């Protein structure tokens, strides 16, 4: 066998390892109910859940409890299937958190009742809104 072939095989082998590891490490998007099932079946891999913050009838966000040392907090989230879930985040409340239109929590269930987020991504309302324009102008 020529060296070139050996080298080619080596490259292919490394590429396959890269692909397999990516598939192994890639996370998935789940709902709270499928995430809970995963936890109960012993799968502790962190997953992504997309949803919104729980809002009261008047549109205000409810259920945010900041711990006294202000470095962590709990909040209520509703996923896209409508499941409500209490979530803990071990970081200070991100600025603008209550205004987020959509939140993605990345983490896993700690107990059956509590989801612990390792990371939170937020989608905030667009910077240019019609009512903003009126304010800026007046």
């Amino acid at each position: 066998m020529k060296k070139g072939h050996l080298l080619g095989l080596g490259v292919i082998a490394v590429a396959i390892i890269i692909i397999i590891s990516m598939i192994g490490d890639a996370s998935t998007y789940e709902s709270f109910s499928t995430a809970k099932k995963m936890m109960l079946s012993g799968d502790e891999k962190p997953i992504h859940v997309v949803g919104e913050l729980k809002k009261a009838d008047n549109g205000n966000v409810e259920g945010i409890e900041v711990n006294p040392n202000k470095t962590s907090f709990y909040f209520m989230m509703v996923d896209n299937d409508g499941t409500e879930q209490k979530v803990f985040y071990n970081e200070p409340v991100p600025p603008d958190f209550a205004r987020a239109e959509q939140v993605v929590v990345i983490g896993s269930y700690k107990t059956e009742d509590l989801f612990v987020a390792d990371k939170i991504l937020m989608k905030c309302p667009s910077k240019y809104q019609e009512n903003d324009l009126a304010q800026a102008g007046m």
Partner: protein
Amino acid sequence: MINTLIGNIGHFAVILAFVTSLITAYAYYQYTVVPELEKPNWRRFSRIAFYIHSIASFAIAFALFEIIYNHRFEYFYAYSHSSMALPVHYMISSFWEGQEGSFILWIFWNVVLGLVLIQTNKKWEGPVMVVFSLVQAFLVSMILGVVIGDLKIGSSPFILLRDAVNAPIFQLNPDFIPEDGTGLNPLLQNIWMVIHPPTLFLGYASTLIPFAFLIGGLATRKYTEWVRPALPWAQFSAMILGMGIIMGAYWAYVTLNFGGYWNWDPVENAVYVPWLILVAGIHTMITFKKSSTALKSSIVLIIASFILVLYATFLVRSGVLGDSSVHSFTDLGLSGQLLIYMLFFLAVAIFLAAKHWKHIPTSEKEADVYSREFWIFIGATTLALMAFQVILPTSIPVWNSIVESFGGISNIAPPVDQVGFYTKFQLWFAVVVALLTAVGQYFWWNKMDAKTLREALVLPYIISVLVSAFIIIAGKVFDITYIIVVLASVFTIVANATILTRLIKKSTFKLAGGSLAHIGLGLILIGTMFSSGYSEVISQNMSGLVYSNSWEDELNKEHVLLWINKPTQIKEYTAIYRGRQKKVSGVPELVPVKYLQETDRVNEAIAKADIVVRGKTYFQKGDVVPIVLEENDYFRIDYYKEDEFQFSLNPMSQFNTAMGLISSPDSRRFVNRDLYTFVSAINDFEDPEWRDDEVYEVAPGDTFFIADFVTNFEGGEVLTEVEGVPLFDGDVAVKAKLTVQDYDVEKRLEPIFIIRGQQVGRIPVVDTELGVKVELTNIVPEENKFVFTVNRYQKDYVVLKAIIKPQINILWAGTIIMLIGFCVAIYRRYDEFKKMRDKGLEY
């Protein structure tokens, strides 16, 4: 009045630039194919077309800047990216904050590079400029803003606000012009953001040059000649792109608060990948120049680097990344256009390469293990694999969109721990690359066989083992992975330094580019290993106080709460938060907010007291004080060690109406480490929710407690005048003198009580730092008692995160040395070209 003239000029320039780019492409194509006799005419015509295109492109840039500079908020671009309060250098940042502006920047650089090429390399002018003009046509089409039926081509930066936004105000008054814009994203209000984008876009633009030479070479069947002119430009491009990446990393380190310089964010990856491929391509091109091998790999790599730049553009601008990136642009609906742009050049490149593939010379001879070609090739392969490992997971959102566009469902998400995931592979690849650069350099400059190689490497090997041992012990590197990183990096530094000294002794500095760049690589590796691998969060809760008895107390709290004036232990330091400050223009230090009275005007305040810094008075009480970006608050935190003051840090935070709290770190730089701190939460004292009244009746000289603060009531004083309230005959005004003790700070609070006839007026004092409001409610002369009503809110505080980053300076030094290495290499190749030109071999 709405000024539509400048917008029309801009829009006309865009259309002119688009049309002339197509004409230039056609004309240069004709110039390339027509017989020799007709060439001069076509060349003159092509050049004129390109010059008009250049002027039009400069006019586009000028028109947009004019709109921003003169605050023409009737234009959507100025309204949404700029504001009255912005200083001029940030207006430059506003220019490229939006997608349209950054396309203009790219167009601008391409024009500059095109003009340089026309002047310097006349032999390749025709085919190279065809590629250039086609790229320009695509880029200009992105800002064309033409709507044909349902088809929208490009997004124009010259659109009026009333056409962009459907606000009711325009029905009442179509000529309405907002008084102020919404401002520049505060994260971009940083000096690095003024120079980072132009650098990066010059890097992007310059990857086109080697690609254009290659396409020209294939089309005109000059299969080997293209490498000579392409190489220095490829080096130039890699140098600028590398510099752009480093500036971006440095910007992230000094303004963003994710705690580092590199986060493996898709946007960062999207630039890193083409850079790796370009570097691999440079190495194979150099090999080809020396020994006529590796031409095909060079062709593939140069095509890949250009296409990957377009792919990066697509990722960042099409909106496909969505939530997975912190800093992608907003979606302008250009994804289709961007995709066509990328696929067009991919198709052209593949078509030409495939068509000519069998004519491209290869060397049939199998590369020997002791040849430099072999090792360089392994190195280029490793770089390509490195790029592959990064681009694959970065493209997960693209994969999801592809599956979804065919009606499938794909729920794959990017890896949760990005940094850990990428580091796992990149670290080992980097070790391999470092070892290859060390060994490879010996092959490069000497003929080698097994024996001479062993002899040559023994000495550097021994030295590097000794140096590594020292670093490992001194730096307490006890992790086996990191020990290997240290060994590999030190080995490449020592081996390349040996070569470097030999080169300088024997010949000239001109040849030293490679060794310098490789030494830089070794330093970057060591610096990254220490600053990231051994970074330590020191802001942990060390008070011993437990807030809630649950499992979460076992979690590492990585932030610490600092109440104002209260000493708090952070590792070996005692930190004390001392309050908010503003930056005042003309004053060398930050000014505490308590000395400044807000006004209605932007960036202006009235001095409440004399502003004195180191004995010099800058402003007197009552003066108007100009503030630099009034939204920015600087939180002063003093650090003590064993009761001795060490230094202050002033991490910045801005409460932005559009984006919420924006936080920028402040770091203390030591030679061997940085203390990196940022504010992660602040007290909001606009509109406090005051708690219930607490009433105190005290006599002068008494001591009592206001919200835990020891308070001394010194007594009352009758006033003859009160600021802001004119006193008439018969009015009585009394102020109570209270001193409040908060740790080592003594504050005077002086509420005022006024009697006018039967009426009583009270002027309470609010101290936002202490979070108290004190009102002198009544005076009972019979008992000689004063009645105070106190409301409490909350003392001011910040939540802080502090991280130690060891040896980060080695990383920065490494990047600078690597860039110098690139510059030396470019100079060498340019010198070569000049000599050939002087001999008439090139022109």
